[in-house]
């Protein structure tokens, strides 16, 4: 059971702290019983160090606030990073700060070692969301063992930020068609000839065909000229449809397919019951599709 004062100020004694307190008590006992003033000097130093380390630890946390919270792309069920900018508005520097979302020691890998007075520092925190959708970030916890590692001191900082978590993306290694087939779905594909899609077959050389498309190995064996045929995927225009009541699994798959198709250079659009995103390509377009999918069903 924690003492009330500890509960209020959110201070947790570390093992070093217990050892230090024990040594101080022992020295005090020896000093009182021996009347040796030199021991009293050591005891006075120990107590002064203890009191001031508490005060410094408090001061280390004072005057800190969250300036802004940013993030890049966070997907459900995948570790992501949130960038938090912490401002030190006091006239003293702050040392050795860890950042977390709970009053609990979670990550000891990426501390802020030093924030000079009247300045700010950024830190990236690892996050993991299980579900897609909008998340509200109301507070961030700072914790520090500074100065001597006797205690962990926690401080709650207000942070008003909403984080949009995109649906989980499944890794599609092969073609989208194969993936859909495996998932009992289908995709209607055009037979228009292209150069970058999947291999379609061979046909006889016709006048006007570029020489680089001639299949020379076949020509060596059989003597006739053949041309390699491919699907025209690069310029495919695909519109994905998804209902508002779609299951999470379906949303995940739609997002994965959209990402994969966009990666392959297809023009992907999205149609829901409410919105329609015309087929396009590019990162911003991808983010728009993912945003729509992330908010699907949230009204």
């Amino acid at each position: 059971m924690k003492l009330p004062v500890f509960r209020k100020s959110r201070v947790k004694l570390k093992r070093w702290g217990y050892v230090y307190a024990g040594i101080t008590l022992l020295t005090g006992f020896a000093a009182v019983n021996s009347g040796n003033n030199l021991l009293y000097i050591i005891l006075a130093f120990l107590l002064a160090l203890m009191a001031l380390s508490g005060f410094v630890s408090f001061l280390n946390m004072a005057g800190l606030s969250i300036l802004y919270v940013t993030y890049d792309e966070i997907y459900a069920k995948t570790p992501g990073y949130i960038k938090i900018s912490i401002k030190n508005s006091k006239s003293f520097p702050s040392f050795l700060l860890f950042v977390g979302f709970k009053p609990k020691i979670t990550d000891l890998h990426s501390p802020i070692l030093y924030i000079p007075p009247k300045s700010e520092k950024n830190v990236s925190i690892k996050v993991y969301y299980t579900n897609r959708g909008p998340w509200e970030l109301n507070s961030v916890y700072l914790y520090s063992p500074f100065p001597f590692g006797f205690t962990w001191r926690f401080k709650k900082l207000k942070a008003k930020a909403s984080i949009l978590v995109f649906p989980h993306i499944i890794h599609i290694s092969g073609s989208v068609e194969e993936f859909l087939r495996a998932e009992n779905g289908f995709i209607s594909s055009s037979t228009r000839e292209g150069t970058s899609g999947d291999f379609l077959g061979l046909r006889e050389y016709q006048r006007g065909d570029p020489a680089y498309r001639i299949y020379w190995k076949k020509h060596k064996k059989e003597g006739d000229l053949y041309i390699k045929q491919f699907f025209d995927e690069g310029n495919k225009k695909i519109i994905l449809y998804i209902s508002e009541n779609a299951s999470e699994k379906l949303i995940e798959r739609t997002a994965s397919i959209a990402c994969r198709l966009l990666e392959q250079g297809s023009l992907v659009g999205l149609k829901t019951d409410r919105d329609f995103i015309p087929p396009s390509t590019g990162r911003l377009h991808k983010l728009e599709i993912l945003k729509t999918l992330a908010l699907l069903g949230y009204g």
Partner: protein
Amino acid sequence: MVEKKLKLTLYLTLSISLISLSHALFPFGIFLALPVISGIYLDIKNKSLLNAKWTTFLAITGFLAFAVFAIRSPFEAIGYLLIYLISLRVLGEKNLREYKQIFALSFFALVASSIFHYSIIFLLYVALYILSGSFTLLIFSFLGDIRGYTLDYSVFRKLLKFVLYFDFSVIILSIPLFIILPRSPYVFFRAPSYIHREIEGFGNEITIGEISQNFNMDKVIMRVKPLQHTFPNVLYIRGNVLDDFDGKMWKRTHSMPYKWQKLEKIQFVKHRKTSGKYEIQLTPMETKVLYMVDFPHTVLPGKLHVFKDWGRVISLPPGKISRITVYRSFNTDVYTEELDNKKMFLSIPHGLESVVDSILFVTGILEKSDIRVIRAKIENYLKNNFRYTINVSSSKDPVKDFLKKKGGYCEHFATLTALMLRRLGIPSRLVVGFRTMEWNPYGKYYVVKVKHAHAWVEYFSQGQWFRLDPTPQQVGLNYIARLAEYWDYLIYLWNTQILQFNYLAQIKIFLAFKLQLQKFREFKIPYSMYPVMVFLILLAATLIKFFPRFRIHPATRYLNKFEKFMKKRGYEFKIGETPLEFSQRFCNPLIQEFIDIYYQARFGGVNIQELKKLYLKIKKTF
């Protein structure tokens, strides 16, 4: 892999505590600390001598060996055991945990050294330990809590700066803490003294002409503070009284009590010239005996009373550290007594009668002369015919040698005087003790050193013993070097205010504080003063508000105008931007020149008119 920076700071901390302990356990402590030095060297080279099994085995065997030693001297054994354990840890394989153990052991070594220490140097050791130790703790905190982190040099420097400020605050805060920490009137564990370096005092036998040169002549034995306004230039402190002289050696044959006795049949005589109270402060742990100023009749504290035929000092309880060494010697009055064994103080060694008679004949002293005349004649004779020197070789007949060579030191002068007085039928004896003229003006006390050891004569007349010092005084009041005086005063304060600080002193401080608080509470401001106070507060507030305006520099005034002007033109100073930075932002030579001239006018003393001209030029141009 533990960082080199941590090792260096940790070993610095360890060295401080080891030096402190080795200093206390000199000389054996030094030998035991030698493996630690080699261990540190090996560790810096990332090598270790002992594996975990060997370390445990040696620790257990060492512990048992020291446990046997502890039966005889437990505290010393603890000190040696600590040094031994530290050397094992330093020589063994180490990780962050073991380094933390070394740090804890270094702290225990510092605590152990406090048992044997008493000198002011200990304070220096503690202060250095706090400085180095807190820095080590800080690095432990950084390296222990961040996984896979190496301490950057820039952070290291910032931490060092922080520690300096922090430790200064620790030292300041520890002063009131030292005063208010609870102290008990009952002491249960008193550490015995095993370091036999006490000054034994004067013996019961003294051979004339044999001076021991084996001790430090400048070693301070005690400091004597007069508690009254008037005090003599030369202070005499009694050590022992010797009555029998066999031609070469003075012996003490009369009563040799070892306890203080309460005297009931003493008749005290007011003797204002020699009266006084003195506070005697012995060097802690080193002086084993109590010395008294002149003819004391009361000694504080406790159950000590004056003892008849005073002249023997009391030994302090053997084997105990004499931390409390301040006592007071009162000799407001001189007591009269009857001499029981007069013959004892009149005996002269066979063969010396004729020698003394011839001197008495030369000096013209008659047996029936007044004592004051006798004194004066003896003093004059010795002063005019003999010189003071300590370069005297040992001889079989020191008195005859002294007369032949016309030179000697205090024992020779006193012996001859005592013999002359005895031949005249005046009971006399030799007193050995200290004669000091060394006065510390800052602490207002006499310093008594080994070199102040002295011998003089006491003669009995009209029921009292009187002092007669025939040895010529070398110098008057001796003013020692100022720095040495300051240092000695510091030691005096350390001994009296720190080492002997106890619950009584605490009560005194608390009562004084209470009194001050009471005075403060009783202090009431009269109602008539209220309007004046309100006026003063308002005046102060007004001055604080408008003061900067009155003191504004003319150059700054033009800069402010320039700033306003630029703002109107759409070029605003950024927050925290200096004029120089502002000018660098613009590549306009006119603005740059203006700012340059501004700096010179503001700090370099260039005429303000130039700045004004430039300002007007800028106004026209833009």
